[in-house]
């Protein structure tokens, strides 16, 4: 009885082991088959892509060569190209996606209960500005998952400029986005986004973070229409972060001197003084040198550095050497000026002051 039981156990273990071994072999076979299929599909698609860009074939001719089971590979294959290309080359790839039935399939996947699949579908459809994606975005926009939320926001933003208030509303309720990400969301909309953004800011009450983002976007596009808003913010805003960003945007846009800069140069906050003197350096003229000169004697090192850099941009070299030679001038100011001149490469003309050393 015991021997029979032992035999039975050994036999069972043998069967189980062989079953596990066979399953592993089967899984390996499936994985290898999948890799092989993917590689073949990629090779074929790469050849077709080159033919498409050489105008040897049309988009629908490529689409005809794609089997239904290869649509996932096509989606993966097209994605990096769609992210890098625009214009005629982009349109050709979008036509392939439509003719092959990929768009139709992704519209179905956009309703999938599996979040990651839905996010992938929404991202792809957003990238090609497919209008039918809009009804699918709602769950993503209300999701706490950033890998689902941001593709949905990008899809919404890219689809139509009229969706901008909804994009801003969605961003208003999130805190995990950086300014850089915000700018990249709007960057691909083109310069037309700036007047719409400006109008939206004028109509609605938004968070300071959104306003800062708007400044960054306008500076990114070099949009000069934002001058009055920046002017007003620099003059009247009580939010220091907002004033600093406005001054930085002013500096990037090279909008020239105005009285707000003068006030900001005398602000008790050192970061505002830094931003103001930098803005003066990028947009001022030689006449405004006198405004930067007092800041050379500022108590803060950064302010002195930016003031020296501004004077280097605005003044003639002779005037700077006069400051260096002036025995009544502040030693810290002279030291900073000397440092900036040395760094810039004009050190050979400056006689070192050994007394300071």
């Amino acid at each position, binding site marked *: 009885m015991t021997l029979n039981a032992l035999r039975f156990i050994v036999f069972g273990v043998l069967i189980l082991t062989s079953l596990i071994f066979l399953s592993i072999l089967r899984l390996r076979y499936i994985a290898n088959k999948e890799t092989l299929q993917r590689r073949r599909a990629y090779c074929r698609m*790469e050849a077709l*892509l*080159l033919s498409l*860009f*050489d105008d040897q074939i049309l988009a629908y001719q490529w689409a005809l060569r794609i089997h239904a089971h290869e649509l996932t590979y096509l989606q993966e*294959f097209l994605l*990096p*190209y769609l*992210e*890098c*290309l*625009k*214009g*005629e*080359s*982009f349109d050709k790839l979008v036509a392939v996606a439509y003719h092959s039935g990929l768009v139709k399939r992704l519209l179905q996947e956009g309703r999938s209960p599996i979040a990651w699949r839905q996010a992938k579908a929404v991202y792809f459809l957003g990238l090609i500005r497919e209008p039918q994606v809009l009804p699918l975005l709602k769950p993503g926009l209300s999701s706490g998952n950033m890998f689902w939320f941001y593709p949905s926001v990008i899809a919404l933003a890219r689809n139509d400029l009229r969706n901008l208030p909804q994009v801003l509303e969605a961003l208003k309720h999130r805190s995990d986005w950086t300014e*850089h990400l915000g*700018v*990249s969301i709007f*960057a*691909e909309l083109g310069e037309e986004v700036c007047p719409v953004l400006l109008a939206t800011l004028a109509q609605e009450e938004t968070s300071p973070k959104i306003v800062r983002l708007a400044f960054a976007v306008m*500076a*990114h596009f*070099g949009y000069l229409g934002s001058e009055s808003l920046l002017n007003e913010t620099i003059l009247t805003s009580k939010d220091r972060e907002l004033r600093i960003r406005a001054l930085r945007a002013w500096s*990037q846009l090279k909008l020239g001197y105005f009285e707000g800069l003068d006030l900001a140069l005398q602000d008790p906050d050192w970061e505002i003084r830094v931003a103001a003197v930098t803005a003066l350096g990028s947009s001022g003229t030689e006449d405004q040198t006198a405004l930067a000169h007092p800041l050379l004697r500022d108590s803060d090192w950064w302010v002195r550095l930016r003031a020296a850099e501004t004077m280097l941009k605005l003044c003639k070299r002779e005037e700077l050497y006069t400051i260096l030679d002036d025995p009544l001038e502040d030693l810290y100011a002279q030291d900073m000026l000397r440092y900036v001149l040395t760094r810039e*490469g004009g050190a050979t003309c400056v006689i070192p002051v050994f007394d300071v050393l």
Partner: protein
Amino acid sequence: MARILILDDNIYFARLIASQLTRLGYAVRVMEAGEELLDLLRAERYDLLIMELLLQGQDGLTLLQTLSCSPFSYLRVLIVSHRTSYVDQQRVAEYDADFLSKPVDLYELLEKVPMFLKRKSWEGRSL
């Protein structure tokens, strides 16, 4: 025949540009990472470098700075990048490199390459 080096970690994009440029008669080589860039430039002479600023594990701007201070400052550089901020563009301009922001139109890029090749090089410029 002009020799072009493409440095981009998006290998699909790099290979696409390379194939199109090869078709136009250029000798093209693709690199995925910038670590061996200087070694490669020591071994072979190139006329144009097309590079991305957002490289994995390396900052393209630092690489550009290294290049401008190296003996290979004659090399003309065209930046084709997703990094499109005003500050980055200004810094690229400081190194006398040209800038095209991604997404880029392939045909437009191919049309512009001969123009970039004709541009005055870094040689003789004090950096």
